[in-house]
């Protein structure tokens, strides 16, 4: 039985020792293949006999419309935006992640506090305040960052959508009127921020420039090992070793 830790002190009413599942976080920029990889990983884990729940950013009912409005109109300050995202995050943490872990489920998180911290930090919100804000978050059992260089991200984005996204290009930062230049600058700043967070929180980096299969293989190997140590061997694998 695993139990969990938090970065700071726990939220009221949560018994960390009773959170028996595993929390696996996949981080990475848009077009890094995160959702494809998470989909495949989830299927594989269920085939192994684990119960799986998927969570992501902006999936809570509480402040969804406000975040949407802010994205459309760019009317909120970086701090107010950060607080809306934090509300969304904690709502999901308390109402989805914690109950799932309590039931012994493997929770696959499509991004976590690291993306939220990075986005706010490059918009000028100070690190200390952000880290304190998220100090009640659970420490994941493993965090994998899917790393793709900015020029390749551009190609991948064009291949799937043919347009650059306003926010993923950091157009709100006003670094350039040129979307392409802004995209590159923004993604480089995000990378630098992720690197800082990686050193601070020690997540693992997976080079995601290879094929979907190669990256998936890498993820399965690593996640499999983590789950073995956190949860004990999977039900399916137990059977095979017995026979």
């Amino acid at each position, binding site marked *: 039985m695993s139990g969990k830790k938090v970065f700071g*002190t726990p939220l009221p009413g949560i018994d960390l020792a009773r959170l028996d599942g595993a929390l696996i976080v996949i981080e990475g920029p848009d077009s890094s293949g995160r959702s494809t990889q998470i989909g495949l990983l989830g299927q594989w884990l269920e085939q192994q006999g684990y119960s799986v729940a998927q969570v992501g950013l902006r999936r809570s009912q*509480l402040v969804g419309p406000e975040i949407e409005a802010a994205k459309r109109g760019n009317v909120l300050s970086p701090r107010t935006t950060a607080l809306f995202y*934090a509300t969304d995050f904690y709502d999901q943490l308390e109402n989805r992640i914690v109950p799932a872990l309590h039931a012994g489920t493997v929770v696959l998180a499509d991004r976590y506090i690291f993306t939220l911290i990075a986005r706010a930090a490059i918009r000028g919100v100070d690190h200390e305040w952000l880290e*304190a804000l998220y100090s009640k978050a659970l420490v994941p059992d493993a965090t994998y960052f899917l790393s793709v260089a900015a020029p390749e991200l551009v190609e991948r984005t064009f291949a799937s959508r043919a347009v650059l996204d306003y926010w993923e290009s950091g157009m709100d930062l006003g670094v350039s009127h040129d979307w392409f230049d802004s995209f590159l600058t923004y993604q480089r700043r995000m990378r630098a921020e992720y690197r800082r967070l990686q050193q601070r929180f020690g997540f693992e980096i997976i080079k995601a420039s290879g094929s979907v299969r190669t990256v998936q293989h890498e993820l399965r190997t690593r996640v499999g090992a983590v789950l073995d140590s956190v949860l004990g061997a999977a039900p399916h694998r137990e059977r095979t070793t017995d026979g």
Partner: protein
Amino acid sequence: MSAGSAETRARRSEADVAGRLIAVEGLDGSGKSTQIHLLHQWLRGLGCKVFFSEWNSSVLVKEATKRGKKRQLLTPTTFSLIHATDFADRYERQILPMLKAGYIVLCDRFSYTALARDGVRGCDPQWLRSLYGFSRRPDITFYFALPLEVALGRILDGRPRLKYFEAGMDLGLASDITQSFRLFQSRVMEQYDGLADEFGFVTVDATRPIHEQQELVRGIVGERIDLMQFRTRSQR
């Protein structure tokens, strides 16, 4: 992940704003809104540049708060965060620019309301102080103190329809809403008493006649703030 020093930095970097910040705090029924309204009128009459802001009033956040409260979806943490969002929005778009522009800003409730209420709801006091650490402290915070029974009487005699969260029903202190309100208010009052020492509130006896309290408030404001400096150009 440490809390704390972000707060000191925020205070230091904005210590030099031209404006002044005055807040009122106290239990529901303490009469603080009446007092700040009268102070507002007085300052306007003197020709001062003055701006008034009310707790939980940001248009952007209002819908989310209403939705959360209606569906009773909120935990102590998300309840706290949603109010912090409202405060951040008002602080960064109104209060701070007004202070920089040299206004006297009057706040009916400030972050201390959150520290008191969310503290009762079990949120970590350090986390709350850090969450609100981006704002500067008011130059003067008036705390309208009165015995619990008097405050309860003023509310319960006049407005018997209590709202779920106002009455602290989410805490499960009592199944009867009036009883829950009593228990919740008594705990909020304990929190306020602690905050009054911690943050150096000016405590006003809220059982005194309204005009006496107002005289005291105006006296202190006039003493601590050079009001001449805040008069609009046309009036100097």
